[in-house]
């Protein structure tokens, strides 16, 4: 049976349930508008570890383990582990999950990794390659700043277009049996580069990729934006969201008030000084696992199109004058 319905989209035919979700977030995220939805808010973003990288790994370990336990599963029940993060060689996830002893695919989609993980996990289940899949993503503000930008204590100003990397990790268990919201369609994005060079304006770098995958999703599924209660991009922030509205609108895709962005939901930009919003792999991961997943279970919303977005930036290549390529993956998640 051929499940592909278009250039980018596949229909998940055998049921894939998101049977559990767990979210571990940092202090600042806990103080934001979604604070009460997270499973755990770390008072100390070091989580008792000696370095930021190790703390990031610890966020992974805790979130993934909690998701598994909530689903009533053990390490032996999980067929595959899919995870990724922003650190070099995906250090956050691999070091955090190395004790799990579960067959593992390390994935990288920058901040779109959570969407990539759910996409691949759902395809694995639909294809009959596994029954239970643990997948997720995470990031840490401090380790991300250290790797991609400047030292935290350097007395410089962040540009008004910048976003704030979310500290935390979000994980879900996908299963062929059980209950919960179902993954129904997956629209995989292409690499889109709109010629943006400013690493202080990631929303602008990624909005083109988000528009592309949104257009593909609606064209190939035949749905229209009104079908979804929530359409949530990953971490575009204010600038990126405005660009998506403009360019999707030009392509004939008009949103009612259902378009939002996990980066806009997670922080209160005015009081938390986060400029354009939240970003990072953890942004869509904890916002979905903590907030939207609970809203789906409570039937506050009946479906969501989650579109984690990623800037595929490499600091060395950027310094060589290259523009920033971007990616976005759309996953349709619906309550039965």
């Amino acid at each position, binding site marked *: 049976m051929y499940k592909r319905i278009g250039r980018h989209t596949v229909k998940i035919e055998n049921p894939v349930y998101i049977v559990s979700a767990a979210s571990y977030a940092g202090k600042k995220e806990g103080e934001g508008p979604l604070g009460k939805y997270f499973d755990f808010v770390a008072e100390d973003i070091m989580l008792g570890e000696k370095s930021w990288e190790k703390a990031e790994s610890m966020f992974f370990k805790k979130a993934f383990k909690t998701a598994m336990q909530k689903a009533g599963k053990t390490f032996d029940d999980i067929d595959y582990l899919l995870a990724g993060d922003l650190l070099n060689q995906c250090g956050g996830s691999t070091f955090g999950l190395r004790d799990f002893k579960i067959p593992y695919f390390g994935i990288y989609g920058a901040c779109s990794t959570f969407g990539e993980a759910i996409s691949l996990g759902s395809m694995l289940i639909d294809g009959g390659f596994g029954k239970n899949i643990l997948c997720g993503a995470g990031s840490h503000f401090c380790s991300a700043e250290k790797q991609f930008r400047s030292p935290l204590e*350097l*007395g410089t100003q962040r540009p008004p277009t910048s976003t704030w990397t979310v500290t935390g990790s979000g994980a879900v268990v996908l299963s062929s049996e059980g209950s919960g919201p179902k993954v129904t369609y997956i629209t995989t994005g292409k690499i889109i580069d709109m010629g943006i060079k400013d690493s202080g304006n990631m929303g602008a770098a990624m909005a083109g990729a988000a528009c592309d995958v949104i257009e593909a999703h609606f064209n190939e599924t035949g749905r229209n934006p009104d079908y979804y209660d929530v359409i949530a991009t990953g971490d575009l922030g204010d600038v990126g969201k405005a660009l998506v509205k403009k360019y999707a609108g030009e392509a004939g895709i008009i949103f009612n008030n259902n378009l939002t962005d996990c980066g806009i939901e997670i922080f209160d930009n005015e009081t938390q000084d986060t400029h354009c919003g939240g970003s990072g792999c953890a942004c869509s991961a904890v916002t979905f696992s903590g907030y939207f997943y609970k809203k789906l279970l409570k039937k506050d919303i009946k479906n969501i199109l989650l579109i984690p977005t990623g800037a595929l930036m490499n600091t060395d290549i950027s310094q060589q004058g290259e523009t920033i390529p971007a990616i976005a993956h759309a996953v349709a998640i619906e309550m039965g």
Partner: protein
Amino acid sequence: METTEKKKKEYQQAVKVLSPNSHIIKNCIWAFFSGGTICLIGHILRKIFESFNYSEDKTALLVNLILIGSSALLTGLGLYSKMGKKCGAGTVVPITGFANSMVSPSIEYKTQGFIFGLGAKMFTVAGPVLVYGITASVVVGIVHYFIAG
């Protein structure tokens, strides 16, 4: 989404329109007064040392030591970055900014050891300033040698 060169240009133009700008005037005022305050403190220190009849060299050395030491301490206490957020160039340009640019990476990389961590990464921000500052001083010295003899 089209990705033709024409579309990209138009997109980049839209990005400029939709992106908020820095508050240049406010930033300049903060930079002027904060940078000026640091220089004023330096001058007050100089006057104090001069009143003790210290030599010119010794006075300059002591003033720099105190400013650099204070900046390093404030960086370590996490206060310099808070000041920098408001003051911008006002706290970057004076010698205190230079100390901050060396201490801040040192704090982060000490987890990677004293040699390949702290020692190697200490100059990631300040390195270019040293390289081109020293190069410029050599060039100026050579020019001065030939012109002023």
